[in-house]
């Protein structure tokens, strides 16, 4: 199979927990076709899963009838993943989790998704929409490092 820059795949998921794994598998398959290393593919899988879960929970309020759209675009030396929902966007940047505050109960044990996304991909951008006509999305990018791939 020839992997052409410009190839694009779109996946629409119901806002139901567990379906983020469909987007993970799709992203992993495309990254593998592009020649990304296994560790970068694992990073991408976690980031995509967390982005989809945020879109389902915060964007679409777990309304299974509202889909999360995931658009994966192969570009020269990079893979871009856009995860879109009908919410009004997320507050960024996400603070790094403070394990001491979590352990003492001062900070929620949950709420690490955005931090993981930012830490695991080369670029993460959150764009707020109106929630109706204009969707909110997070755009994730992983880049090919020719020395290590």
């Amino acid at each position, binding site marked *: 199979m020839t992997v052409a820059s410009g190839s694009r795949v779109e996946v629409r998921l119901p806002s139901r927990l567990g379906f983020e794994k469909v987007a993970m598998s799709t992203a992993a398959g495309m990254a593998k076709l592009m020649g990304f290393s296994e560790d970068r593919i694992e990073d991408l899988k976690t980031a995509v899963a967390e982005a989809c879960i945020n879109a389902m929970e915060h964007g679409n309020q777990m309304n299974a009838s509202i889909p999360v759209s995931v658009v994966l675009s192969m570009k020269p030396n990079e893979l871009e993943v856009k995860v879109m929902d009908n919410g009004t966007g997320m507050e960024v940047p996400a603070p790094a989790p403070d394990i*001491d505050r979590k352990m003492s109960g001062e900070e929620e044990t949950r709420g690490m998704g955005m931090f993981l996304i930012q830490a695991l991909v080369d670029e993460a951008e959150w764009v707020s929409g109106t929630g109706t006509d204009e969707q909110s999305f997070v755009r994730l990018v992983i880049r090919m490092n020719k020395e290590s791939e």
Partner: protein
Amino acid sequence: MQTANKVSQQQLTGASGQQITCLRFNGDISSVSRDAVLGTYQALDKASHKRILLDFKGVEYLNSSGIALVIQVLMEASKSDQTVAICGLTPHFTKVFTMVGITKYATLYPDEAAALSAL
């Protein structure tokens, strides 16, 4: 879409001769695993289970909600003066657990044999 998760429990003996309670996780560890993960841990008698080993070798999918459950186990263990160790994570999740600071409260071992020889 969620793989059924199951937690099995086994009593092991560490190199020091101490009894270790191993909780083996399987399938998905996510928000729907709360009862399996926390329920199994909370069912243990805190006074007689002082050393806990969480084994992730059989885990197929783990997300931030699942990691939050692990932190809740660590919180409760800390209050009960229990020691928790973790084994069987993939290299990716070893990195993720380190990034979120879990290594400050639990030692990570590559596998059960490494954990038992150190405990």
